[in-house]
């Protein structure tokens, strides 16, 4: 099922759900005629939409709101924090084209600090499904949670058959003693291919699709830190505040450390181009992920010796 079909089914069976958009209907085009008044398009007004979502939630609704991730999380940030966050209302914020998915739009549209700023709001959940199947697998639980949530919407078709979603738990694809790739969102696909390349080179490789960045699957990550020589974090996000920072916070809290190699954007926006060209230019192809990982692993082993 597609995102739209899944959300439509959920909304049909739950009167509390209202679907809102700031005139970004790409993934929800057929919903107005099905949901009638429960489909609310506020026009290009991310702030007013989020404020109105808070009002609807006050009345017992579960607003599922849609806008481009950069405008939703940044232009409307204070409305999210103040009107949704302070009251801990179950507003579900769906950001379109997060991270590299904004491909050729340019830096205005690059939501690559969204995880960082949204997870800073008390009680806010942050999700990043790997592909459309992962998204629809996670959707019922994300909507059913009584907390506010930000969802990095990713509706690309994937080939991997994802397992059932357990709230707050990551999806472990494999475990490995040498290297574990930790990733979220669209980079899951290339990480999965990189894992195959690394295994071909003889490495024991783990791969985790994190799914939920807040809450993060703390127990799993601590175990991995104990069992693997090198963790590679692979994210289409600034280095600051994303997965690498989450790990740093987690390890410091638990007074442990381990070898972590981050693949993230460092102090700059990414090169705007079509997605595959972005992935190539920014060195997130399976080959480049494998190459960087091997280089780092060999350096790590030298250090260990």
């Amino acid at each position, binding site marked *: 099922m597609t995102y739209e079909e899944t959300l439509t089914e959920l909304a049909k069976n739950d009167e509390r759900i209202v679907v809102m958009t700031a005139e970004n209907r790409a993934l929800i085009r057929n919903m107005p005629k099905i949901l009638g008044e429960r489909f609310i398009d506020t*026009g290009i*007004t991310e702030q007013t939409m989020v*404020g109105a979502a*808070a009002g609807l*939630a*006050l009345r017992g609704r579960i607003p599922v709101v849609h806008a481009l991730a950069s405008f939703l999380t940044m232009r409307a940030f204070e409305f999210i924090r103040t009107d949704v966050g302070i009251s801990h209302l179950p507003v579900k914020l769906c950001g379109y084209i997060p991270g590299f998915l904004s491909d050729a739009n340019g830096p205005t549209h690059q939501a690559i600090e969204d995880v960082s700023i949204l997870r800073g709001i008390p009680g806010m959940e942050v999700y990043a499904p790997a592909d459309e199947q992962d998204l629809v697998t996670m959707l019922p639980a994300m909507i059913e949670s009584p907390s506010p949530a930000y969802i990095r919407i990713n509706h690309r078709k994937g080939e991997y058959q994802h397992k059932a979603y357990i709230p707050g738990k990551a999806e472990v694809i494999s475990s490995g003693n040498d290297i574990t790739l930790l990733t979220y969102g669209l980079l899951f696909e290339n990480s999965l291919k990189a894992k195959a390349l690394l295994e071909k080179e003889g490495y024991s490789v783990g791969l985790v699709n994190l799914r939920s960045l807040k809450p993060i699957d703390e127990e799993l990550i601590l175990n991995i830190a104990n069992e693997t020589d090198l963790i590679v974090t692979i994210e289409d996000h600034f280095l600051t505040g994303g997965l690498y920072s989450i790990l740093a916070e987690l390890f410091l809290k638990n007074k442990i450390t381990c070898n972590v190699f981050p693949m993230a954007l460092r102090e700059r926006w990414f090169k705007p181009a079509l997605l595959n060209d972005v992935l190539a230019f920014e060195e997130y192809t399976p080959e480049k992920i494998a190459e960087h990982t091997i280089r780092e692993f060999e350096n790590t082993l030298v250090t260990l010796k």
Partner: protein
Amino acid sequence: MDKNKIEGLQFLATKVREHIITMSADGGCFIGASLSCADLIVYLYSEFLNITPNNLTDSERDYLFLSKGHDVPALYGTLAELGFIEKKRLSNHLSTTDSIYWHPNRAVPGVEYHSGSLGHLPSVGIGVAMDCKMKKQTNRIVVIVGDGEMNEGTFWEALLVANAYKLDNLIILVDRNHFQANIRTEDLIPLESLEKKFEAFNCSVNRINGHDFEEIDAAFKGLKQGTGKVNVIVADTLRGKGLPSIEARADRWFCNFTREETNALIRELHGEMKAKIESETLTVR
């Protein structure tokens, strides 16, 4: 509106003003903006809104949102006088033992939503108004906004959306006290003509004297549902109303008086001699 009723409202408004003055010492409060809309809040709770201490979770109640936020002492004074909260709680103002502080806190019974950041509650009010319409309920949603608050773009953005959804159950009440924080609106970011601006946004507009209970009553009783238009009532008010020594003064925005001064101001409220104010009150919060 008969004479007795008006006298009753004036009596209650005076009580509320006493509370506001009392809250303007020991840490202080935004006294000017509270005094300017005290009559409006007293009227709304006494004569217009279906909000009582016993129906605060009833989905058919009316809603009052204080978007400007600084006026919350006027609301707390009203809530205390009408039995929503105990009067003695007001003496906990700014204390960590209670939850009554400079901006609205919805943990206090009768406070519909928190505010403090300007230009937010028109949109929250829109969400509530949309849901009431969807459920075919006839609740009225009043959002009190300050005139300085209308500098915020989200105020006008919200009007566009409210008009698009024909939210005639939404009433925007402008406390037009003619001041931003410390500067007259017309000297900084001119707002006039407000009626023309609201009419251009397709609102149904009425402009009244916000201290005249007959005019306030006529404006609210004259509201109609089913018009498809957002209602706007622009209430011209006086910042610091009731205390000639601070009325319409740019430097009497946030005030933290001494107890001697608040005692003198309460006497001034009752028509005795003007209080002598020596406290530095132009405090930036």
